[in-house]
């Protein structure tokens, strides 16, 4: 089976036995629990769209390892076209879900690990890349969804992994056995963790020689002994359990459904260990993963912004403001901001390049620019949406009152907009805008794929300031200068 349907994906989750806690309760089945259903639905759509004729060109690919048609989320990029199709796929799916569909993180982790393991083998004669190719084949053949688990809790940020008072604040090797390793620690904010099939665990930052036990990359099934998931809260998360319309996006929810993953003395067999102490490659893996992941954000957030712009536009028609010049100007600005981040994603894909492993990498500088713009533009898009929507965004009565026999008539009467558009349409649009712009959703645009300062560091590092200085010095006639600065 090279590709699963959405239904088959949901069935495959039911066959697993992961340890998951949420609100102090052990969760038996994420596919039937209302807190998780929207996230499962969003991930399931990545399966459905890969086999839908309208989207298969973007959402599927041909495996370079098996020659089989596979879901693009399991693909290793082979050329620029793959990089471009990746972000086009993300925009297309984002337009359908209006929410995070989670599967890009493991996808990016696989692409980063693929090229880094090749480089490690080249230097040390290890066989990580061979192992990893077998792992990728397994993921492609079974069409699995691995999460990408990178961020450690980090404890005292002024200390390196090996200097922490509690060694478990970074995932690390606690024992090396003949047939594998034992690891402990945790990974935080892991998107799609509870509805993945397993976790691709990567180091979170550059390491030094003394941190070598923390330079570890591996894969474990979601229900491996010792793996515990603690699902995070979201703003308005109780609405998922108590109502429908007030969720705004009941089908797919908001953000990716993040969890803390604890590894309590987890055994990892050798065939799923991909870095084991090669500390000097930790930074390479982090940078390549970050590049892939930051490449994405003009795609998926572009797709989400398309939905938001549509919701706001429809709402202006429901509120009778659609012809006001300042409203039209603000909507045009929202589109401009959306297409700006989209342009960044396309640009860093077009400027990608081949790695020694033969796989392709997006341009790191432009990928970081993409994500930094997302941390700003998405907030500005949301601000404009709030401006246009009005204060009702924060004060609107609930769907229970709308349907209440006593006060429902008042809610309908006083929430009405233009006479020809039903009041429920207006309420539904405002709830969708609320779900997409208030609370947890915005924080995801800020910190997902790394915080703004992480992007600034990479941008400064790759900004080639010395060349820019030479360009200026030439025109300012400082010293002896060539006719052309190259």
């Amino acid at each position, binding site marked *: 089976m090279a590709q699963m349907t959405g239904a088959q994906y949901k069935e495959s989750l039911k066959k697993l036995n992961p340890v998951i806690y949420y609100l102090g309760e052990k969760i038996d089945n994420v596919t039937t629990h209302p807190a998780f259903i929207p996230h499962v639905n969003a991930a399931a759509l990545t399966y459905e769209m890969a086999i839908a004729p309208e989207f298969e060109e973007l959402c599927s690919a041909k495996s370079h390892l098996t020659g089989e048609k596979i879901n693009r989320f399991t693909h290793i990029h082979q050329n620029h076209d793959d990089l471009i199709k990746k972000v086009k796929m993300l925009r297309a799916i984002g337009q359908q879900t209006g929410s995070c569909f989670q599967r890009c993180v493991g996808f990016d982790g696989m692409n980063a690990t693929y090229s880094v393991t090749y480089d490690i083998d080249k230097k040390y004669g290890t066989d990580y890349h061979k192992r990893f190719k077998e792992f990728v084949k397994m993921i492609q053949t079974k069409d699995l969804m691995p999460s990408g688990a990178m961020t450690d809790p980090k404890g005292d940020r002024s200390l390196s992994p090996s200097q922490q008072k509690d060694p478990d604040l970074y995932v690390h090797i606690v024992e090396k056995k003949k047939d594998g390793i034992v690891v402990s620690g945790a990974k935080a904010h892991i998107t799609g963790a509870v509805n993945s099939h397993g976790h691709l665990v990567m180091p979170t930052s550059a390491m030094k020689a003394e941190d070598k036990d923390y330079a570890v990359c591996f894969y474990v099934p979601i229900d491996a002994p010792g793996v515990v998931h603690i699902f995070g809260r979201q703003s308005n998360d109780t609405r998922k359990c108590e109502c429908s319309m007030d969720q705004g996006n009941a089908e797919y929810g908001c953000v990716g459904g993040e969890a803390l993953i604890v590894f309590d003395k987890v055994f990892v067999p050798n065939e799923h260990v991909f870095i084991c102490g090669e500390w000097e490659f930790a930074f390479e893996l982090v940078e390549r993963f970050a590049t892939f992941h930051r490449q994405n954000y003009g795609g998926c957030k572009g797709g989400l912004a398309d939905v938001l712009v549509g919701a706001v536009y429809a709402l202006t028609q429901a509120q009778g403001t659609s012809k006001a010049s300042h409203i039209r100007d603000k909507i045009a600005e929202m589109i401009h901001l959306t297409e700006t981040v989209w342009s960044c994603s396309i640009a860093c894909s077009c*400027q*990608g*390049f*081949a*790695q*020694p492993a033969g796989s392709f*990498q997006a*341009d790191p500088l432009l990928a970081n620019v993409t994500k930094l713009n997302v941390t700003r533009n998405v907030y500005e898009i949301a601000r404009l949406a709030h401006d246009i929507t009005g204060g009702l965004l924060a004060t609107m009565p609930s769907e229970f009152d709308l349907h209440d026999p006593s006060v429902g008539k008042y809610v309908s009467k006083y929430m009405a907009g233009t006479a020809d558009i039903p009041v429920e349409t207006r309420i539904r649009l405002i709830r969708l805008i609320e779900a997409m712009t208030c609370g947890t959703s915005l924080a995801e645009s800020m910190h997902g794929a790394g915080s703004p300062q992480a992007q600034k560091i990479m941008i400064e590092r*790759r900004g*080639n300031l010395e*060349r820019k200085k030479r360009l200026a010095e030439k025109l300012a006639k400082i010293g002896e200068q*060539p006719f*052309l*600065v*190259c």
Partner: protein
Amino acid sequence: MVSNRFWFADYINRGSHKIRIALKYCGSCNPEIDLSALGAEVRRFIARRESFELVPHDDLDIDILIVLCGCQRACADREDIKSHAKHSLVTAGEGLRGSRVPYKDLAAILAAEIELLNSSESD
């Protein structure tokens, strides 16, 4: 592309005493390295050798084409450009043949690669 063995036979048969080397730049939109300086150093290396001759990159009879690209995107690493040459060496920012090479070493490594190609054909 002609194989190395036949290439040298062609070279001898042609009656020329010079290896024809060309330089092609990627276009230099936003190079991460000083391409001009690198190119100048390669040109000086070629000029120092009697048996080497610098020819235009669009010449149809090139023995070794040096493609200098300012970043890893390597825009000029294209078959239509390289097909005029029997051998090609492509730099990509601080990289050559998929390996990272610091900028300060690139010219020397390129020179060594050219010598290697030359000597392997002479064996």
